[in-house]
């Protein structure tokens, strides 16, 4: 998973667990950038009567570094509050919910949005903003799309926000990849071979909780400009998201809790799959506690990624050139930790600085693609990952191929990638699996799967 159960401790705390972060120039409002952070991994749609929600005791943040120092210059904070209409019923809703203010909805959630500048000055952007309910089913939430649309709020300054349940847009063959690194389309070549088959989307039919904010570009750049040249250093922003909890929690034992102390970061996420597959088990919880500015301590895991060493072992004879490559992976360090400087890929750069930091780097001067390619820059589409990340980008294939060596020639022209490096994927050919759906407009992730409409997983 991008970051759904990536570290031992945060996997026990789903409401504070970042799953995916996205940043892209809005295709239908190209003067804006859309920033999305998902939380609450692997939501089974029928999970009632206490359906999924954000944590009232969690501080959610989307952070932007616009000067390359690995520190936040613009931070959007989201704080949630739940209101129970009738505490004397067990029901989530007592009738059809036809509007987000419906009295039939018994457990509403609202939130505030605050922006914090580089000096720590806070400005309230909105409060009492309603989330939509979860998608329960045709009786309880009969027109879900309309309900969710009511939860898209316009704030001053041309900002839009949405917070609530969405369909999972990240696709990956989870069951196979974590079964000793198997890729079903190529598992006939695996050390423990099975007949090759098409991939199976492990997130099919699941939901997440999304915080999305659409912001004019001029509110994100270092000088309030709207750069139009991709070579302009002001055009690159670094984005990450995180969740924090109060430092102290006392469980009183009567159903009451006391919390105190400063907010402490318990989860973070920028580039996909970093804590998942780059950071080793013993460092994962620690990594989640760290700020991007301190990521130099993790460079060694990028320079010699464990997965690059495993591929030749798991697929004997398939990756001989990768197996023989012993230099530090400067390609991965550039792509994932500093950004790609000018002169490497024609018409593109997303370099922030030499400070290694895990940021989703977006060059906002590059316009949205009229014909997006899910392989992003690997597919010749400069508007896609790793130039930020769009909701539909196939980040699993892109990163597997990069780790397999396909991007080494960007920094070391003497290296010849193995033939398989440019072919490996978990769905073959690379594709958005059937059933995964998106929206053309904000918040871009699709209508969540309804509890009634979902089907139990088959057992075999």
């Amino acid at each position, binding site marked *: 998973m991008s970051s759904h159960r990536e570290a031992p*401790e*945060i996997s*026990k*705390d789903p409401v504070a667990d970042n799953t995916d972060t996205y940043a892209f120039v809005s295709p239908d409002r190209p003067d804006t950038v859309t920033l999305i952070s998902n939380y609450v991994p692997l939501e089974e749609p029928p999970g009632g009567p206490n359906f999924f929600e954000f944590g009232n005791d969690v501080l959610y943040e989307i952070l932007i570094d616009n000067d390359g120092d690995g520190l936040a210059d613009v931070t959007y904070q989201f704080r949630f509050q739940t209101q129970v209409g009738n505490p004397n019923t067990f029901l989530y809703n007592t009738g059809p919910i036809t509007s987000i203010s419906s009295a039939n909805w018994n457990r509403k959630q609202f939130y505030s949005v605050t922006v914090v500048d580089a000096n720590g000055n806070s400005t309230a952007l909105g409060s009492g903003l309603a989330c939509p309910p979860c998608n329960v089913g045709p009786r309880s939430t009969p027109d879900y799309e309309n309900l969710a649309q009511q939860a898209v709020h316009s704030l001053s300054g041309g900002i839009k926000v949405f917070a609530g349940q969405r369909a999972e847009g990240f696709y990956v063959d989870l069951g196979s990849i974590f079964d000793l690194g198997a890729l079903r389309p190529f598992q006939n070549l695996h050390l423990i071979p099975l007949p090759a088959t098409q991939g199976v989307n492990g997130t099919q039919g699941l939901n997440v909780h999304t915080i999305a904010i659409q912001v004019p570009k001029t509110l994100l750049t270092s000088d309030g400009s709207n750069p139009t040249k991709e070579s302009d250093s002001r055009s690159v922003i670094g984005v990450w998201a995180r969740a924090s*909890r*109060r*430092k*102290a*929690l*006392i469980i009183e034992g009567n159903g009451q809790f*006391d919390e*105190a*102390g*400063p*907010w*402490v970061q*318990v989860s973070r996420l920028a580039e996909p799959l970093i804590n998942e597959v780059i950071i080793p088990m013993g460092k994962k919880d620690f990594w989640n*506690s760290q700020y991007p500015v301190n990521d130099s301590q993790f460079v060694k895991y990028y320079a010699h990624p464990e997965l690059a060493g495993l591929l030749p072992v798991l697929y004997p004879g398939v990756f001989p050139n990768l197996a023989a490559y012993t230099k530090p992976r400067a390609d991965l360090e550039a792509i994932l930790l500093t950004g790609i400087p000018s002169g490497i890929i024609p018409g593109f750069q997303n370099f922030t600085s030499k400070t290694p930091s895990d940021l989703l780097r977006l060059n906002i001067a590059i316009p949205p693609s009229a014909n997006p390619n899910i392989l992003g820059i690997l597919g010749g589409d400069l508007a896609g990952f790793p130039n930020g990340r769009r909701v539909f980008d196939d980040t699993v294939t892109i990163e597997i191929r990069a780790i397999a060596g396909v991007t080494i020639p960007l920094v070391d022209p003497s290296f010849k990638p193995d033939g398989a490096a440019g072919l490996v994927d978990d769905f073959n050919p690379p594709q958005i699996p059937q059933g995964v759906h998106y929206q053309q407009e904000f918040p871009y992730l699709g209508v969540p799967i309804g509890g009634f409409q979902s089907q139990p997983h088959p057992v075999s």
Partner: protein
Amino acid sequence: MVKLTRRGFFKQTTASAATIGVLAAAPNLAAVVENSAPDVPAAETELSAATLTEPMLAHVRDVATGEVSLMVGEREIIYRDPQLVMRLLRAMH
């Protein structure tokens, strides 16, 4: 033994024992402040019972040095008071 929680409450504790107190009543707060060691920053001593509208948590981070963390609201104050810590330890027996 110190218990580990996922929120890192005790993460930095090096003591062989720790005491947590929820000091919700004003007289208790006053007692803590009165007995605090001289290394309490002057600005922090301005906290008064009148300003305390929510629970205050005290966390003994290190018994050996008497290092105590006080948390109220979103603030955290670290100070040393070996005598207070010793009295708390005696209260545990």
